[in-house]
């Protein structure tokens, strides 16, 4: 039973066009006893493993085989922990920035709304003052006028906020989005490179076979092989360029953004301080007038 199963097993592997290339299989079939002993005694290597593990390997191979057969190839990705971290950072950053930008935009709106309501309030108070008459009426009118004045300040600040704070934040978001696009490009480049590399390997083996059998298709195959080789080299170069550029750009990006944001924050704070001071001054100028009203 075991002999039969093993027979089937080995032949199956041997007949799979990818797995038949596997080094391990070749060793298994061809290696002399000496080499085999060495392999068995190695710490690593599949021949060290216990039969139970062999079953696991068989299962893994089986799943990979079925994947290939079903066309469900897992996407090839870089397994670079640093790069992973950076990708995660970029995606998270976009979320945070988008939220901040949203609130910044809302804040602009709120300034406009407050300005509008102060203006309406001022108008209504002025009319009330007109029908009141005497000292109190005057006080109302003054208040109304001041309200309208402050409303204008608020509208101005809203615009300033939009231009000098919300816009830079939007820029920041856009920059992050463009980095995301680059990430996608890099993934594509990597995948292409991998695919080409694999195809080349297969072509190589094929070429060897043809050469061994002295087939008349050797010439054709050789040309194909050379073309593929060139493509692969290009793809690799392209990928490496992207990686290099990304690494450079990230540093520059961080530095630039610190400057940009620093300026944006400065403008924001300046604008708010200016607005607040303007408001305080405007209201304060009313106080002596109100005082004189009460003594009247």
């Amino acid at each position, binding site marked *: 039973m075991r002999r039969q199963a093993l027979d089937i097993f080995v032949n199956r592997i041997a007949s799979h066009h990818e797995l038949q290339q596997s080094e391990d299989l070749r060793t298994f079939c061809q290696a002399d006893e000496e080499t085999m002993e060495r392999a068995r005694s190695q710490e690593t290597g599949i021949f060290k493993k216990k039969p139970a593990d062999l079953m696991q390997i068989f299962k893994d191979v089986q799943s990979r085989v079925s994947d290939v057969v079903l066309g469900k190839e897992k996407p090839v990705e870089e397994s670079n922990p640093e790069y992973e971290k950076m990708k995660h950072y970029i995606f998270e950053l976009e979320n945070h920035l988008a939220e901040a930008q949203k609130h910044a935009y809302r804040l602009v709106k709120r300034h406009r709304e407050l300005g509008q309501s102060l203006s309406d309030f001022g108008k209504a108070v002025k009319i009330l003052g007109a029908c009141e008459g005497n000292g109190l009426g005057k006080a109302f009118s003054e208040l109304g006028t001041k309200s309208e004045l402050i409303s204008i300040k608020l509208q101005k600040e809203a615009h300033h906020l939009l231009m000098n704070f919300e816009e830079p934040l939007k820029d920041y978001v856009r920059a992050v989005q463009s980095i995301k696009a680059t990430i996608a490009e890099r993934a594509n480049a990597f995948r292409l490179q991998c695919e080409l590399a694999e195809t080349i390997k297969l072509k190589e083996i094929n070429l060897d076979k043809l050469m061994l059998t002295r087939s008349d298709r050797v010439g054709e195959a050789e040309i194909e092989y050379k073309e593929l080789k060139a493509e692969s080299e290009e793809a690799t170069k392209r990928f490496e360029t992207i990686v290099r550029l990304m690494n450079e750009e990230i540093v520059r990006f*961080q530095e630039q953004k610190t400057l940009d944001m620093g300026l944006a924050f*400065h403008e924001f*704070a300046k604008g708010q301080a200016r607005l607040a001071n303007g408001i*305080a001054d405007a209201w304060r100028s009313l*106080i002596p007038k109100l005082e004189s009203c*009460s003594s009247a």
Partner: protein
Amino acid sequence: MMGYENQGYEEAHLYASREEMETLVLDEPSNGHHLSDHRSIVSLHEAHHTLSPPAAVISAVDDPLVSSSSSSSVDHQNPNLPFNSFLEPPSYADVIFNSFDESNGDTNGHESPKSLPRSASSNSDYLNISVTEPYREQEMSNSLVPGGNTYVTYLITTRTNLPEFGGPGSEFSVRRRFKDVVTLSDRLSESYRGFFIPVRPDKSVVESQVMQKEEFVEQRRSALEKYLRRLAGHPMIKKSEELRVFLRVEGKLPLPRSTDVASRMLDGAVKLPKQLFGESVAPANPQEVMQPAKGGRDLLRIFKELKQAVSNDWGGSKPPVVEEDKEFLERKDKLMEFEQQLSNVSQQAESLVKAQQDIGETMGELGLAFVKLTKFETEEALYNSQRVRAADMKNLATASVKASRLYRELNAQTVKHLDTLHEYLGVMLAVNSAFSDRASALLTVQTLLSELSSLHTRIEKLEAASSKIFGGDRSRIRKIEELKETLKVSEDAKTCAVREYEQIKENNRNELERLDKERHDDFLSMLKGFVVNQAGYAEKMANVWEKVAEETSGYAKDGS
């Protein structure tokens, strides 16, 4: 963009703090025109959000950003613990302007009894009332509804030094239900016609069904307290027998209950046939004319006055006496105009308060977003530029959160000041009521004069007719005697009515004087308080932002 919001807040780290920030943000006045006081807003809002009691909420606001807990593990309640060192705890002492707020001598003191900003008058008399301890009680009498009816009573505590109540240092309590308050209000309206009597809280039957029980009871308790304090603030009414009895007498309220319209009409309808068919033609009691026809049982009188009113408006001839007081008419017109504008300003004030609340909220949300960003950049920092940026963001976030807090406090004070507008809308209701007292008293006088005039005419006619018959016409003579009797009673009634009318006019006049003065003081106080408040908080905010501007001045382009 919407997706990010959900994502951001579903992370829930700062969800607690956002909610907590919102609970101290003022709820917009949602029931009509209420700029109700801060305390009731907070309690209302809590009922909405079913959060823990006030004390816990107020202290919890400090939690996310200020807590000095030394725990190093980040739990969901205090995700910003690492930021303790960044944000100083707010010193409320230097944020609340006790010195600025002249009108509210006791900014923190929600126990202050003043409903209007006018401080206690120069004399040392006081009559302080508080309404507390709502209690659900069972209806004792047999009710048709099995299981009985429940009603709520309130503890009314009075502290006073007025002699009418027992001299200095008196303090006493009674339990009253809302129906008692209605009775008090009705009896006062009868006794003090022509005065600007503060209007009692609504019965609001619908609201009592719709709102949560505790919320409704609390709202009513607060409204009752305000009402009683206003009554106590009225120079005439605070000395009234009705109020004294209401505040002092324990057990059942010894004031005659008001009857509902249906029973009155029923009573009136019983008497009507007798009235119409001549058996009792004149009002049995001349004193009845002291009260308006509408609230009474004398249907005939109601009809007569209605007829008079119609003839006033549509009849060809001028009514026997009219409102001639030009000064009064001028003042009345002015007041009506004032009322309209006041209503408008009150609406705009509500919008203003809402806008202030909104900007404070958004500022806070912006701050929190930057807090999250700061945390993120700090954790993920690979480059120094990130650390620098994180530090800048921290400053901005801190300032934003501070500013948000300042807006919140500003708004709380604004609401208190602008509440005067709402108060005076209530006063205008009282004024209108007093003016209609005057109008109905005038109508009574006019009706009686018309009646007298027609009686005289009838008597003359009868006398003329009977004089033609030699020896006298027994039936006519009898009729004339009857009419002369009626005439005498009507004359008495007319005298009463005229006296009443003149009294009401006098009351109106005095009250108008009082109103003008108080209005002037109250509104001036409101304006001052509002302006000082705005200036003060604007200054505080300027300081906060100037600091950040300074810290980031390195980034500024040259010359800016």
